[in-house]
């Protein structure tokens, strides 16, 4: 065999089945790759011993004829997912030393299928960020560089995309609140998939904004995404917002046939000042869809321009409450003040434990929920959120899927936007509306910009119609024929 880390999940699955490779071999190769990829800072905790143990179990499972899609496949887990006995801190200082006694449902489902854990992946602190620069464990580097210049991997799932794009994991769990799967996927030439809100259990996921948070996957191909999504999806009685629907065979949806399908193009996504390359790529995507036999339909999503401000009220409001539990009383960081009381401990702990971006969002969230402001901000935002959802609902009466750019730019350099929160927030301008509406969506690598950096196109579907998103993504992937690879400078 050549380099096992270059295999797709689907290829590895077939080789494992045939007995050409073992999970142990595959895992050992990936443990080496993880070690070699330290320069990316994608992993903040490595679990090689666990990985080998799990690999051996997977090999036994395969031998026993009990292989499923993810059996024996080495993956990375975003630090947001609770993993029993292993570093789970959402990359925040305030959760210092926290190792839970429990496993998130999403990761448990992977282990039940025999997947192998390589370690925990870096992310923006509490998933708040679009460049992975807010992590307490330092920024993640994008395997793709702009010449000799580093770029950010996007965020918040920066470790997830960097590990997968950098061949240090075959797939990774990720989470999307306003674009945290799709935007980094676009920045790294990976396939990011966010299912319908309620498709995956949030049990054991460190909460950022409960009404938006949704688990998903980062893989190198659409097929791999379908295989991994099928493993992690499903109803969970422990999460009241998860929905009791059967999980379809996502891989079976990859028929390659979208003839007669109607693809919507939202006119409001033509942003003034958007780079020409993005417009051009979008146009190219439209042409690919047409060529594959789909019908292109112009649609309107009139409330799109309110999506970002709405998101930046709803998400911080929920976050301000979700993050109240980090108080130094029961776990994680505790800072005390000599002679001080409870309030002093709260203040010292939270001042030391949270980074600037997290503090900013807690303050925004606290403000918009305050007496006298609730109606003007939070309540109004909820109403606008409904209008945005209605926009999509109306559009989906006419079309089967929607095609847009994933992000308004390619990966940027570290520090370029970190001093300007608004510029940073604009990264999510195309992804946030679907998050507010709870829709399934993907980012498919579709091309390179002038600097040789990847660009993705976003495909959105109706609620619970992940199959169409996969189907269209598969056709897009084939048409785009994105074969570019980053130079492996980190090895």
């Amino acid at each position, binding site marked *: 065999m050549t380099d096992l880390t270059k295999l797709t999940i689907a290829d590895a699955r077939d080789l494992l089945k045939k007995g050409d490779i073992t999970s142990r071999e595959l895992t050992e190769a990936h443990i080496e790759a993880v070690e070699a990829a330290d320069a990316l800072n994608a992993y903040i905790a490595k679990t090689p011993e666990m990985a080998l143990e799990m690999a051996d179990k997977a090999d036994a499972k395969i031998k026993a004829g009990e292989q499923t899609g993810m059996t024996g496949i080495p993956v990375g887990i975003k630090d947001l*997912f*609770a993993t029993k006995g292993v570093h*789970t801190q*959402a990359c925040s200082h305030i*959760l210092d030393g*926290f190792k*839970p*006694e*429990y496993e*998130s449902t999403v990761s448990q489902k992977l282990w039940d299928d025999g997947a192998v854990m390589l370690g925990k992946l870096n992310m923006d602190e509490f998933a708040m960020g679009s460049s992975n620069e807010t992590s307490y464990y330092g920024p993640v580097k994008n395997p793709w560089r702009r010449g000799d210049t580093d770029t950010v991997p996007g965020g918040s799932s920066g470790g997830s995309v960097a590990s997968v794009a950098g061949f240090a994991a075959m797939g990774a769990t990720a989470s999307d609140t306003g674009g945290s799967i799709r935007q980094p996927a676009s920045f790294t030439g990976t396939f990011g998939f966010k299912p319908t809100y309620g498709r995956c259990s*949030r*049990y*054991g*996921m*460190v*909460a950022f*904004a*409960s*009404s938006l948070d949704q688990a998903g996957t980062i893989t190198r191909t659409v097929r791999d995404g379908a295989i991994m999504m099928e493993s992690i999806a499903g109803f969970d*009685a*422990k*999460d*009241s*917002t998860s929905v009791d629907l059967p999980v379809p065979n996502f891989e079976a949806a990859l028929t390659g046939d979208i003839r007669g399908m109607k693809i919507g193009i939202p006119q409001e996504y033509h942003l003034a000042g958007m780079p020409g390359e993005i417009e051009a790529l979008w146009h190219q995507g439209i042409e690919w869809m047409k060529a594959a036999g789909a019908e292109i339909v112009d649609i309107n999503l009139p409330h799109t321009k309110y999506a970002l401000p709405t998101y930046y009220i709803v998400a911080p*409001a*929920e976050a*301000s*409450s979700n*993050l*109240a*539990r980090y*108080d130094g*009383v*029961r*776990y994680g960081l505790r800072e005390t003040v000599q002679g001080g009381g*409870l*309030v002093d401990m*709260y203040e010292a702990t939270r001042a030391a434990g949270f980074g600037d971006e997290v503090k900013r969002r807690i303050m925004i969230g*606290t403000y918009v*929920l*305050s*007496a006298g402001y*609730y109606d003007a901000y*939070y309540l109004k935002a909820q109403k606008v959120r409904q209008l945005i959802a209605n926009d999509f609902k109306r559009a989906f009466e006419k079309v089967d899927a929607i095609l847009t750019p994933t992000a308004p730019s390619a990966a940027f350099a570290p520090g370029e936007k970190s001093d300007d929160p608004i510029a940073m927030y604009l990264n999510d301008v195309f992804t946030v509306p679907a998050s507010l509406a709870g829709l399934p969506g993907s980012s498919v690598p579709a091309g390179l910009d002038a600097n040789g950096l990847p660009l993705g196109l976003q495909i959105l579907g109706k609620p619970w119609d992940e199959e169409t998103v996969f189907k269209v993504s598969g056709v897009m992937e084939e048409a785009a024929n994105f074969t570019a690879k980053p130079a492996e400078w980190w090895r």
Partner: protein
Amino acid sequence: MSNYRIQGATGDWEVVLGLEVHAQVVSNAKLFSGASTEFGAEPNAQVSLVDAAMPGMLPTINAECIRQAVRTGLALGAQINKFSVFDRKNYFYADLPQGYQISQFKHPIVGEGTVTLDMGDGKTKDVGVERIHLEQDAGKSMHDQHPQLTYVDLNRSGVALMEIVSKPDMRSPEEAGAYLTKLRTILRYIGTCDGNMEQGSMRADVNVSVRKPGDPLGTRCEIKNVNSIRFVRQAIEYEAQRQVDILEEGGVIDQETRLFDPSKGETRSMRSKEEAHDYRYFPDPDLLPVEFDDAFIEAARESLPELPDDKKARFVEELGVSDYNASVLVGEKESCDYFEDLLSALAEKTGKPAQKLAAKASNWVMGDLFGALNKASKTVNESPVSAKQGADLLALVEDGTISGRIAKDVFEIMFETGKDAEVIVEEKGLKQVSDTGEIEKIIDEVIAANPAQLEQYRAGKDKLIGFFVGQVMKATGGKANPGMVNQLLKPKLDG
């Protein structure tokens, strides 16, 4: 209307009272987790990952708690809201692990209802219930376990509470007490709260304001967490007087939260309106709205036992129990259960209809049984004589086996030994003599032994019949059937 007034230099003051009662829901598990709710476990022994607010943990609604709230609403004749919402009430405290309490704010599960108070002499007063909502209890901070540190026990964290909010309809400490008493009785009857105020499973926040009769409502103060009915009355008396004193001196009442100190019998300020929390309520995004259908409500309704007011009416109207007896018996569920068990056992044993037995049985429970229990400082549940045993005793009286007087002696022995009435009657040979021949024989002996009295009787002093009855009873050790003695004695005396 209550006549309770506080006399001030400027005239009479009326007290206006509203209560917020926190009643711990009787349920298998906490409101949003599977942890046990039993009282008295080791600190932090009944804490799930959800209760401790570990990262990534999610609440899931315990349907039993919803059902109990609906049952409570139905028992108070209240509106049941088929759509209700759980909100987060945000504030920081060491015994509030999530940093917010899950409660209901805009859309409570139960709307307006009524509690009817018995004000004595058959008088009643209706107190309006504004709403009932479900919420989580907090844990317990223990400040007395360590010189510098506070310990936190999370056993109570997440236990379901019903907050039952009254309208400001009460006008005296007695009415407030009667309201709490009645509410407690109802909750205990339907089994939605054990009403145990000492263990904190029922607590009251008392809103007190005063005004000149006819004036608009005054500024109120809220006295937090009062945990006995007696303290509620005391707190109101003190607080109302305090407010009157301030107003009479030309002062104004600051709207504030106060605490009642039972050892001093006074209230003191806890926090002012300015220090009040901004709870930043918003719908909990981890939970869906609570929705149920009419069938759920009907099933809850069918699960309700007979309610105290209905029961009392039935006792009086159908069973012929006195109004007073019925009120007392119904007031405590245990007493009532005892009475009803006794009555049905008695009816079965004697084959007589309950209506014929109820008045006597109620007198026995209220008199003999309660008297003995009181003397022994025991509750009904601790009674050494079970309802079945009591019924057996009364059945012996009913069928003439023993006299009512002997029954009192037998009961005393039963109460001491726990033995059955039949056994005692047998052992001590207390069976009533109802054999005509035997009684006649004794009568003859008594008449023969008292010729002087016989002569006086026959001379017209017919009251002496009592003397002869007494002598016959004495000769039989009280066992002679008094009715038969009377019946047989007269013709013999008359000659």
